[in-house]
């Protein structure tokens, strides 16, 4: 490719403007870090860290930044379709935007935000010092970050993926899509997907092996349980994506014909493999959010969770059923009645365990003393809105009716009605709930609640009209329409809703700024919400070693009962604590792997192979490395504990 081809996207003023904005931002950050002499601090405290809490915070930070990029794309789409025959975006740019919006929101917002919460919360909830493989955890994060950089760079260098976030063949194949656009898709998902797979393995191992003494399976807090199930799904689903993406790369860059329409290839096999991963992926992002709601609702109803056992059972059933329903994403592909019948039934079955959970939450609140905090508002808002998403899901599950809804805005409205209350509300509930645990001060309640109402109302105004538009035959992914269709009014309402939604998300950022300035007044102790599970038993912010003495667990919600009985869970004798060493290797290995993917995208195979060899060297050095970790001594722990308690 020539230079002018590579930088072709910059010919568009909107992209040029964004590129300049990003450059100014990057220069400002670099200048700021240099001026305040923070490079060493950043490198030693964050880039080299293997501490699960810091990695969690970094995940959440990157996810928030990506949320705003994905949100701006959503606003642009709504603005483009607000009036008929709009010229704001051309068709190619619109294609790129709806593609990256989907990819970003699912893979670079929902998942990393939840992974951030896993990292911050799970080791604390089970009374562990860190995750099972701290170094691997750092590698997971930096690989995810490398993937995020790749997908964002694509806008400026070479062009973004443009075949939809599902990237169906033959459209995504080399004959219809000869640019580098979809190479970016394959490689950024591949690199970040490897990170996700490692996170899955890491957390399954952590939860199986590192629970505090006495914490048997039925005493594990619900967020940890739901994340455990989600991570098992990660371990089983992501290899399918890895293989499918390799096949995509082979097709696009090495001339194989796996998904080709000729020479015995099968274009719909891509759709099949994509959804074998894609449907479980939905449960990967929604189950941990269910866990957050369970914690939040129990805490703010001042009651123990209703039907703990049935919650666990329903999640285990969901984990299995999530692998049995994928073909409902392409009912209209043209397969026979038997296939559609089988997948219709499995799809409707999944509504049963989900319904069980909804009733459990409602019954948890029954006779509870409910306090309406920001996280609780998100949990309360989730139930009715998500139910609309669930009911329209059952409508879509009927294969014959689906021929009517397929590929219209009805579908788009449905999955936003599932993913926004399910995942986004869950993420935001968890974010407001655990913020004090991360930083030692609360977020301002008033701004948080205003934010909730803006988001909840803005969301419904944006997406409800899409149900009606969809039933009126408005196809998804259309970049414009003519005035005679009569689609304008509802599209305009949807655009206004999107503006309210954007305002709601802006309050999140304002709240960080406001609360940071007022952190002295908002400062709180280890247990600001009078909560139930173990993470609240230690200080906020959490010391490096998490618990001075690992508590022994005798029942579910041990911390709550210990509070009632006036027991100190960390009363034992303090001993030396064994901790993992920091390492910069995961960061540099991810830089190399990111560059490897970048050169691969542009078919610079020679450079890519060289960088691949460097990656192998990193791995070889790691296998021969002997790292025994280090110890924090009793004296240091006692000093730190005294400091955190406030007596010096």
């Amino acid at each position, binding site marked *: 490719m020539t230079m002018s081809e590579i930088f072709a996207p910059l010919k568009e003023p909107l992209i040029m403007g964004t590129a300049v904005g990003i450059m100014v931002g990057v220069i400002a950050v670099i200048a700021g870090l240099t001026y305040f002499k923070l490079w060493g601090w950043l490198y030693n405290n964050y880039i080299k860290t293997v501490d699960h809490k810091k990695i969690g915070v970094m995940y959440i930070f990157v996810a928030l930044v990506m949320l705003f990029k994905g949100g701006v794309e959503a606003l642009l789409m709504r603005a483009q379709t607000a009036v008929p025959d709009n010229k704001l975006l051309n068709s190619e740019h619109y294609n790129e935007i709806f593609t990256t919006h989907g990819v970003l929101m699912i893979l670079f917002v929902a998942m990393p935000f939840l992974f951030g919460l896993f990292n911050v919360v799970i080791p604390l909830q089970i009374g562990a010092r860190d995750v099972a493989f701290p170094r691997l955890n750092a590698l997971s994060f930096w690989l995810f970050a490398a993937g995020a950089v790749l997908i964002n760079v694509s806008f400026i260098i070479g062009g973004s993926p443009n075949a939809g976030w599902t990237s169906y063949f033959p459209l995504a194949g080399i004959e219809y899509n000869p640019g580098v656009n979809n190479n970016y898709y394959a490689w950024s998902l591949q690199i970040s997907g490897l990170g996700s797979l490692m996170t899955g393995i890491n957390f399954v191992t952590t939860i199986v092996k590192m629970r505090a003494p006495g914490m048997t399976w039925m005493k594990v807090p619900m967020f940890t349980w739901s994340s455990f199930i989600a991570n098992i799904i990660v371990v089983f689903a992501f290899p399918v994506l890895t293989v499918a993406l390799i096949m995509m790369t082979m097709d696009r860059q090495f001339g194989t014909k796996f998904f080709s329409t000729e020479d015995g290839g099968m274009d719909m096999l891509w759709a099949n493999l994509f959804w*074998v991963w894609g449907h479980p992926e939905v449960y990967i992002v929604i189950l941990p959010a269910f866990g957050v709601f369970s914690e939040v609702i129990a805490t703010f109803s001042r009651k123990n969770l209703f039907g703990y056992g049935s919650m666990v059972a329903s999640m285990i059933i969901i984990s299995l059923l999530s692998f049995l329903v994928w073909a409902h994403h392409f009912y209209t592909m*043209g397969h026979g009645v*038997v296939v559609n019948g089988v997948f219709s039934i499995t799809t409707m079955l999944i509504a049963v365990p989900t319904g069980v959970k909804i009733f459990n939450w409602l019954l948890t609140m029954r006779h509870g003393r409910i306090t309406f905090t920001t996280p609780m508002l998100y949990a309360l808002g989730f139930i009715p809105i998500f139910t609309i998403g669930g009911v329209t899901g059952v409508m879509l599950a009927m294969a014959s009716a689906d021929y009517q809804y397929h590929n219209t805005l009805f579908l788009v409205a449905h999955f936003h009605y599932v993913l926004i209350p399910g995942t986004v509300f869950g993420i935001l509930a968890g974010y407001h709930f655990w913020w004090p645990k991360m930083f030692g001060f609360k977020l301002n309640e008033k701004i948080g609640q205003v934010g909730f109402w803006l988001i909840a109302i803005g969301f419904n105004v944006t997406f409800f009209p899409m149900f009606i538009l969809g039933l009126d035959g408005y196809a998804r992914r259309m970049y414009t329409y003519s005035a005679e269709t009569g689609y304008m009014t509802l599209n305009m309402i949807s655009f206004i809703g999107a503006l309210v939604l954007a305002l709601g998300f802006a309050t999140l950022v304002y709240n960080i700024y406001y609360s940071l300035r007022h952190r002295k007044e908002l400062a709180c102790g280890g247990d600001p919400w009078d909560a139930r599970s173990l993470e609240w038993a230690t200080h906020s912010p959490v010391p490096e070693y998490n618990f001075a003495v690992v508590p022994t667990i005798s029942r579910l919600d041990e911390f709550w009962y210990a509070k009632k009985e006036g027991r100190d869970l960390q009363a034992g004798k303090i001993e030396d604590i064994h901790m993992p060493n920091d390492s910069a290797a995961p960061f540099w290995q991810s830089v190399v792997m990111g560059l490897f993917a970048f050169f691969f995208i542009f078919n610079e195979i020679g450079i890519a192979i060289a960088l691949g060899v460097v990656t192998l060297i990193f791995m070889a050095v790691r296998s021969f490395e002997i790292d025994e970790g280090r110890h924090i001594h009793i004296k240091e722990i006692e000093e730190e504990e005294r400091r955190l308690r406030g007596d010096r």
Partner: protein
Amino acid sequence: MAQLFPKEHVLGFIGSIVLTLVALSVIQFDLSLTAALVILWVTAIAQASLQLVLFMHIGETDDKKSIYVATIYSVVIGLVTVFGSLLAMIWGY
């Protein structure tokens, strides 16, 4: 020193590359479909066992129950994926 050398890992690494090359050879030679499929099945099963034994250290734990649960769950999901795909893409098409 002999104990420090990760013999199993190196063996597994070379073994998995060799098995991959053998599997790839089916496109190089003009084999009958049956012969090609036999080679692919044998190398696939050998490859999976090699990974499980040499890298995942299956069987090196006393916790037999969790090994069985994990194996059965994996086999079920694997079979569902393979036969479900065959149903959706070929038999029920």
